């Protein structure tokens, strides 16, 4: 992902907020913009029912990014993009952070509705927040349960 100027960072943040606010209730935090390390947290919760008889929440999308300020601008150095299926159970995520070594490694986390797969890591390439969200959102909107087929373990 290319470095972002502060202006571009803010524009992206605002675009993300506007988009996700049409899917669920958003809590967005932008922390550290005046320092050299910045964190963006976007929490989107979709209620199970919006009518009078409210059910438990249906889905949660939690996206966290850490950015460092360099001479080129803000560079994303770590992320955790997670989708939680609160109705059927399970979790799917794209992460970038160190695993066994010291270098950040992009990977997938995938936990099936029965809880299997917790703590395991699977191959992935770096992804953008919006691309990850589009995948999660389509899976959710289509009513598909969390599925870990086709993933290659890196543990």
């Amino acid at each position: 992902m290319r470095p972002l100027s502060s202006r571009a960072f803010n524009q992206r943040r605002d675009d993300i907020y506007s988009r996700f606010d049409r899917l669920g209730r958003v809590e967005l935090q932008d922390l550290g913009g005046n320092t050299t390390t910045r964190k963006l947290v976007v929490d989107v919760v979709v209620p199970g029912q919006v009518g009078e008889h409210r059910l438990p929440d249906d889905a949660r999308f939690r996206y966290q990014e850490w950015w460092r300020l360099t001479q080129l601008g803000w560079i994303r150095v770590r992320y955790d993009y997670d989708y939680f299926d609160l109705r059927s159970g399970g979790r799917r995520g794209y992460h970038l952070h160190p695993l066994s070594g010291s270098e950040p490694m992009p990977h997938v986390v995938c936990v099936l509705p029965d809880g299997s797969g917790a703590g395991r890591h699977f191959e992935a390439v770096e992804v953008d927040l919006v691309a990850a969200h589009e995948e999660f959102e389509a899976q959710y909107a289509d009513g598909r349960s969390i599925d870990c087929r086709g993933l290659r373990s890196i543990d």
Partner: protein
Amino acid sequence: MEITKPFYSPHEVAELASLHPSTILNYIASGRLYAVKLSERTYRIPARAVIGLLEPERLARSSVAVEPDAHVERDLADEPAEEPVSA
């Protein structure tokens, strides 16, 4: 109006809004109505977007917190969170 499920088809939204389905598709195409694209011709509209179209005053408010002086360097060095998160 009772919104009872998380997603609606354009046809269902058209019925709720007493509009022609093509109007709803035009809203989607223009960005006025948010929809998730499942395939080239299949869209699903989140309940929140439907409420935003029909009764925007009912929407639970989202929030933005900008804290430019917050220090998150130590947070970056922490071990990654792998815990399951509930709502």
